[in-house]
């Protein structure tokens, strides 16, 4: 299969139309059935595959950066009697387990991006469900702030996954139903087993949608709801508009190269090296000059590249399980970039840059690969790049005689970038010794913290001198690469997030985890499983033993 590419542009969309008119944007889903991501299935009835969601993610991102005037985004379709019928079942049926898991993770992240924009960027999203809204289609609607359903006597919102396919509405559906929309859990139980879904008054009574309108009043109703949403948008500074230029990476056999990020892979060893570079020169410090750099601003470009590299890793390198994370360049440039960015949060564009960095770091936390951060000579684990070390599963530091190897803290580590469960990576790291956070940060304000001293604060996992370091690291990597990838995924996901749960972590840790288990069970994907046999003449046969 051709490698998946994640960069796109509205000019090249096959499945969506983005139209901006004043403070309103319309995102119209019009899936082209003839252009699935790979041959073998048709995207009928506005069903989606990864290529459709890549465009949705792109559009959401561009609205934030390129259309700061927009306040309300209406997501709808122009397909008669059909809003969206969810993920394409035939696509799921013919996909590998690894692809399915990553597809769901990607679509989950896209919906979280929508909610992030609503929470932080002075935007509101309206799902104008002009027809059948099923499965992933309703999950998309649930990610919006307001759901309007056409009341035509037949269009429903529905979660047919469990009764029809023996899987879950795994793109946040179950979680959002009870955690976000506060649908009573017993009613949610009824709804999630009712293949045909619910319509009309009862969908309102149960809180499944916010408003219903007959067909003749639908457009008018949608406009009224959009007006109401526009009036309640938080007063958040937006703009100026900055165009997101293509990243233009170069992809080689064993390497993905961007301007500031490189991912090199060793397929025989099943390992990779992710290297992030500091800005090559001192970044600008005033907002005007930063805006003038546009999407070339290091703080933005570097993290867009990192996001793309993580996606390449997830989708195109399924066997590269062990990643060493390295940084290179001048720490002072990273710290200067952090300082300039965080000092200028009254600029709408720079606000968006910070929000994007936060999202990319969360994607990093949620990538199911082993990450060992490695600090050696020329490393610059400083400020926001230190987040990569704090978010890694382990952090190895070289102890050198000249004390040139170390790390640098900044404001970026003091709660500016929260993980999915609402804690900073410092808080996650020092979950049982929170008093160490202030100590480390106040020491960091004095300058670089060399390896041995960093160890005394408990920041690195392993510190080794020049004689031991190379072997120590090599053995750790080889050992890690030999362990079961499934066990590692479960172990890492459990250990990375000590502390509280949020809706977001519940989506990944509870819903996705169960979904991924169900995906491997014969009742869904065995020879006689419901997902396997969907659309086939034969019906599913279940093993009725409960766990």
């Amino acid at each position, binding site marked *: 299969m051709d490698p998946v590419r994640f960069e796109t542009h509205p000019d090249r969309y096959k499945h969506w139309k983005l139209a901006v008119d004043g403070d309103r944007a319309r995102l119209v889903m019009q899936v082209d059935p003839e252009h699935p991501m790979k041959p073998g299935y048709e995207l009928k009835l506005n069903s989606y595959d990864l290529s459709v969601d890549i465009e949705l993610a792109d559009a959401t991102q561009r609205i934030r950066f390129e259309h700061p005037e927009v306040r309300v985004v209406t997501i709808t379709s122009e397909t008669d009697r059909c809003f969206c019928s969810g993920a394409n079942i035939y696509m799921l049926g013919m996909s590998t387990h690894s692809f399915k898991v990553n597809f769901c993770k990607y679509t989950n992240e896209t919906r979280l991006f929508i909610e992030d924009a609503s929470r932080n960027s002075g935007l509101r999203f309206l799902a104008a469900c002009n027809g059948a809204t099923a499965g992933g289609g309703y999950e998309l609607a649930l990610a919006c702030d307001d759901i309007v359903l056409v009341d035509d006597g037949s269009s429903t919102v529905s979660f047919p996954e469990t009764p029809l396919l023996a899987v879950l509405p795994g793109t946040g559906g179950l979680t959002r139903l009870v955690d976000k929309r506060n649908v009573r859990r017993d009613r949610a139980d009824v709804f999630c087993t009712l293949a045909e879904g619910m319509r009309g008054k009862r969908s309102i009574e149960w809180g499944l949608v916010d408003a219903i309108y007959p067909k003749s009043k639908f457009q008018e109703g949608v406009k009224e709801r959009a007006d109401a949403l526009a009036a309640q948008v938080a007063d958040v500074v937006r703009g100026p508009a900055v165009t997101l230029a293509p990243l233009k990476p170069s992809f080689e056999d064993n390497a993905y190269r961007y301007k500031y990020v490189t991912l090199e892979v060793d397929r025989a060893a099943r390992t990779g090296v992710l290297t992030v570079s500091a800005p090559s020169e001192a970044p600008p410090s005033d907002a005007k000059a930063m805006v003038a750099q546009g999407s070339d601003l290091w703080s933005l470009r570097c993290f867009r590249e990192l996001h793309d590299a993580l996606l390449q890793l997830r989708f195109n390198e399924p066997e590269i399980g062990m990643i060493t994370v390295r940084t290179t360049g001048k720490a002072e440039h990273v710290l200067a970039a952090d300082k300039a960015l965080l000092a200028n949060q009254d600029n709408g564009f720079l606000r968006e840059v910070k929000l994007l960095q936060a999202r990319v770091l969360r994607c990093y936390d949620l990538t199911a690969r082993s990450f060992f951060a490695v600090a050696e000579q020329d490393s610059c684990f400083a400020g926001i790049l230190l987040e990569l070390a704090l978010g890694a599963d382990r952090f190895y530091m070289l102890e050198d005689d000249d004390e040139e190897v170390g790390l640098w803290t900044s404001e970026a580590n003091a709660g500016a970038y929260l993980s999915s469960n609402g804690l900073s990576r410092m808080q996650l790291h020092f979950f049982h010794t929170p008093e160490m956070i202030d100590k480390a940060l106040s020491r960091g304000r004095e300058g670089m913290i060399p390896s041995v001293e960093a160890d005394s604060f408990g920041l690195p996992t392993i510190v080794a001198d020049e004689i031991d370091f190379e072997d120590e690291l090599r053995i750790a990597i080889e050992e890690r690469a030999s362990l079961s990838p499934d066990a590692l995924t479960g172990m890492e996901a459990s250990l990375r997030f000590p502390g509280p749960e949020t809706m977001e972590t519940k989506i990944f840790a509870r819903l996705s985890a169960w979904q991924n288990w169900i995906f491997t069970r014969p009742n869904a994907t065995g020879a006689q499983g419901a997902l396997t046999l969907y659309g086939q003449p034969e*019906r599913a046969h279940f093993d009725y033993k409960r766990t």
Partner: protein
Amino acid sequence: MSELDEKIPNNVGLSTDKRLQRALEKWQPNYINWWKEMGPLGHQADNVYLRTAISVESGGWANFDHVKMPDYRWGIFLEPKTEGKTIGFGDELGKPVWDEVPGEHRNALRRLIVTQGDTEPASVEQQRRLGDTAPSMYDMRNLFQVNVEEGRHLWAMVYLLHRYFGRDGREEAEDLLNRRSGDDDKPRILGAFNEPTNHWLSFFLFAMFTDRDGKYQLAALAESGFDPLARTCSFMLTEEAHHLFVGETGVGRIVQRTCELMKKDPNDDARAQGGIDLPTLQKYINQWYSVCLDLFGGESSSNAADAFAAGLKGRYKEQSRFEDHVCLEGVKDMTFVEGNKLVTKEVAVRTAMNEYLREDYIVDCQRAVDRWNKTIESAGINFTLKLPSSRFHRSIGNYAEHSFDPEGNLISAAEFEAKKGEWLSTPEDEIYVTSIMKPCLEPGKIANWIAPPRRGINGQPFEYEYVKLA
């Protein structure tokens, strides 16, 4: 016989079924209101010579009398139960039939019943304006007979919803009265049932082609492992036969009259004589037939496969015509459009269930067309009516979104647009056909564009006063 049984003839033990009584108490008045609001316009007070089913015994289902339509005794009848019956097809083959709804299939069954049920009131609504332009009293009576029986078919489906589907069933039954054909805000479920039947040519073609789809759907449901549905549909089929008769002979009488008018005209021009010329009739046949083929659903359908596998919907005469009732083996060749070509591919038999039913329907339609052609031939006229290819003018299934000529050749959309007026009825045709629909309401007289029937209803002569206008 209790008062209730007198009011609502039935063989389902209504007088002792509390649940059914409670449901009907509320639904029945709403049904009557719906009938008065959406039933035949302007003829509710007429006395119409209608047949009423009062029992399923031989002769019991055909009692004729003059009656006002709102006073019609709509009843609930199922074919008598056969003890020891087993499921005749699918994964549950050979197990006892279900007398109650199996939970596993509850939603699928409800959907089948609601979709079927919705077409019944829809057709009454579509035809509500036709009374005033009836070509004869005989035809007017037939229209109203069809209408009241579509109403009874609604009752039959509502009975199943009330009796077997609890609260959800009652809500669905209400909704069957709330949707309206052609209403943008609460349309009937199937697209074809939202177009009004504007004139009598369309009515006859509806009864010929659309009701014939109904016959095949009912026949497929009459095979169902859910026995009450099977028995209900079996009884409905006896009534449906009259509707098909009205359609087939109606078109046949038009053909006959057209031939007479052609002979009368110096240029063989039936239109010049105020009739419906054969090329125009052909266009209407193309239109109605192709739309009705869509009603069978996609050629290759996983829903159809599921319904067969679950034992809910079988094939036409499943028991007598087929040996393999499981159908997990074997394939059916089917044509698909790929690029700019027609290609043949194999489709699993279960997935092809819609197509099997459609094929039987096509054979049945062709038989009727052959009869009409005999009439033309014996009049010595050189013209043959044809059913277009099943690929022509389709909007559901393998051929939707592609263009074909009536012979089934793949053509461009532009070509289709250019030729459309030769193949399908045009707005001008509609204006013309509507213009000749002059009512003829004197017993024994008939409009110019249609021939009288060979015989009347229930042994009565054509001249009989079938409708006593109020």
